[in-house]
């Protein structure tokens, strides 16, 4: 029998050594735990449909140099933080010096701050499910730490531009940790882009820790190039009466994986997760979400839409776990899917585990095609076939895109999606 594949030891060696000592120590400790980490195969349940798209090579283990021009498709009105090849570049970033809000790169932390962070990093995630967050833990370089003091409110969204610029094979490991104090508020936009044709791995971890009454809106746009293998994880911990809202828009590629894990740990916490995925050609996209209702009286509302064209493959796996003490939980999960061609594949799997008896938990998943009657109606008004197809396909996700609360992002997403579908239907 062939031995199960493991992560190559080439991946265990981070490049930069500029971090404060406690973080270097953490990274080293995490790396030692990675020795012989099994790689997912089709027998690995949470990678069942996606393992075949994962193609890691030893030369991909090399950390990409933190240089290259940062690219963004967004017209950024205000604050921004730039990551190039996974490394935060403070010189290229512009952010405020506001009372109660600290935005720092890891390397700027003093020993005490770094010590505190080293205990927090990874605490929001279940690494059994998000295996590759471990790799990030061993490999992250200069990352971003945001601490909001109680009551602090960031007056406009903070844009984080993650650009991968590579002429040669390699990998990038961006890391972000957000600690939101009681009743603090912020909106954070993460945009992932790339330039260059080299095969690269982008392995991200973003963590949000919300204290009582904190409100965070997170927007994630994945617009990397075809050849990028993106494996990202977002962990969210929510205390009492906090509210987390997530809007993810993802365009397919060789491999796209996002794990979004939310733990509702304090009573009255609310979470809302919206996601849109589009794939064409031979692209792939896999969203795994997980919501743990740990405390009573929490609400979660999740709406994901996938659209797959050509021979592409989209996957949605939505897990809701209602713990024994989480009485009066209210959970609603909805996943609708649109298959544009016979050769496309969509796999959707709701996973509900309910251990409390007084809960409301609804879920629904559908897979369908464009409606012929609607199409006839549109073309009977003189609208061209391609345009009619684009309109109807956009209609499938407009409800979600229109909810993106930051205008610059919403408009960029609409334009990019429209272009994407124009391409999808170019043969018509």
């Amino acid at each position, binding site marked *: 029998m062939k031995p199960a594949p493991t992560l190559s030891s080439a991946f265990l060696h981070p490049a930069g050594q500029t971090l404060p000592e406690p973080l270097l120590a953490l990274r080293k400790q995490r790396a030692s735990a990675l020795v012989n980490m099994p790689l997912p195969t089709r027998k690995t349940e949470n990678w069942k449909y996606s393992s075949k798209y994962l193609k890691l090579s030893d030369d991909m283990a090399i950390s990409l140099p933190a240089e290259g021009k940062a690219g963004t498709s967004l017209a950024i009105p205000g604050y921004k933080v730039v990551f190039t090849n996974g490394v935060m570049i403070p010189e290229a970033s512009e952010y405020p010096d506001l009372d109660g809000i600290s935005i720092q790169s890891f390397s700027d932390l003093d020993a005490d701050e770094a010590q505190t962070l080293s205990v927090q990093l990874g605490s929001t995630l279940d690494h059994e499910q998000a295996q590759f967050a471990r790799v990030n833990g061993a490999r992250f370089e200069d990352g971003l730490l945001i601490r909001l003091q109680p009551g602090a409110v960031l007056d406009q969204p903070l844009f984080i531009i993650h650009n991968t610029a590579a002429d040669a094979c390699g990998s990038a490991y961006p890391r972000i940790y957000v600690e939101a104090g009681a009743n603090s508020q912020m909106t954070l936009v993460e945009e992932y882009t790339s330039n260059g044709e080299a095969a690269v791995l982008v392995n991200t971890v973003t963590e949000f820790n919300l204290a009582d009454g904190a409100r965070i809106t997170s927007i994630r746009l994945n617009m990397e190039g075809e050849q990028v293998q993106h494996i990202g994880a977002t962990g969210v911990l929510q205390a009492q009466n906090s509210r987390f809202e997530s809007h993810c828009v993802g365009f397919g590629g060789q491999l796209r994986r996002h794990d979004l894990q939310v733990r509702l740990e304090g009573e009255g916490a609310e979470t809302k997760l919206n996601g849109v995925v589009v794939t064409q050609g031979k692209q792939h996209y896999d969203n795994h979400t997980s919501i743990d209702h740990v405390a009573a009286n929490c609400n979660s509302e999740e709406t994901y839409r996938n659209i797959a064209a050509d021979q592409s493959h989209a996957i949605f796996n939505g897990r809701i776990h209602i713990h024994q003490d989480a009485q009066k939980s209210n959970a609603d999960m909805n996943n609708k899917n649109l298959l544009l061609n016979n050769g496309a594949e969509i796999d959707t799997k709701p996973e509900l585990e309910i251990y409390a008896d007084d809960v409301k938990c609804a879920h629904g998943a559908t897979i369908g095609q464009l409606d012929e009657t609607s199409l006839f109606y549109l*073309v*009977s008004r*003189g609208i061209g076939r391609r345009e009619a197809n684009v309109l109807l396909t956009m209609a499938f996700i407009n409800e979600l895109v229109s909810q993106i609360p930051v205008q610059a992002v919403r408009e960029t997403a609409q334009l990019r999606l429209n272009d994407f579908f124009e391409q999808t239907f170019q043969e018509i």
Partner: protein
Amino acid sequence: MLSIKNLHASVEGKEILKGINLEIKAGEVHAIMGPNGSGKSTLSQVLAGNEAFEITSGEVTLNGDNLLDLATEERAREGIFLAFQYPVEIPGVSNLQFLRTAVNAMRKHRGEEEMNAAEFMKLAKEVSRQVDLDPAFLKRGVNEGFSGGEKKRNEIMQALLLQPKLAILDETDSGLDIDALQVVSNGVNALRAEDRAILMVTHYQRLLNHIVPDYVHVLAGGKIVKSGGRELALELEERGYGWLGIKDEDTSN
């Protein structure tokens, strides 16, 4: 303008139209009446280009050009407009976006400049008032959650915006109360023009009190069995279809 010769059409192998002959000239208003299942809606759908129907023989020309060779969208651009019996709800596409896309597709076809959002908004508001539809409906999804009457008014609004050569109205009066019928009829009457023809398909003659046709045809069993002037409609109302040898259990109104 429109010439239909010996038109046969089937759906799923079943022949519905069995040799239709009809000539419509510019400026004329024709009404096609007939019992349920006679093929009225099929004729409308076939003229608009619904591919669910198969044309087995016959010919249809619009101003001398073969209509059956054209795709649905090309027919629309050449001036065919079908007001649907059951207008389709399309959540996620705003009525305004839909209407502007359609109007601009027509303008582009005619080599005219496309209208920008502001210009179109002004026009759309004007026309929506003409059919007594609150401009707030422009922002909603296409027909989404509209009442039956609102859907029909939205159809007439589209006709007014697109200014077709031939407007086909499929059961436009169905589901309308008397006030809505008046509004819709006013809209249709506003469409009447020397260079435009109107073909109304209806089960009942009450619409014809509001929109007075020049010609009335009775369709039964996939053929036009009788043609006449508007008095034919009145006679049908009085006597039903029976005297023409047509069975119709469903005509009692």
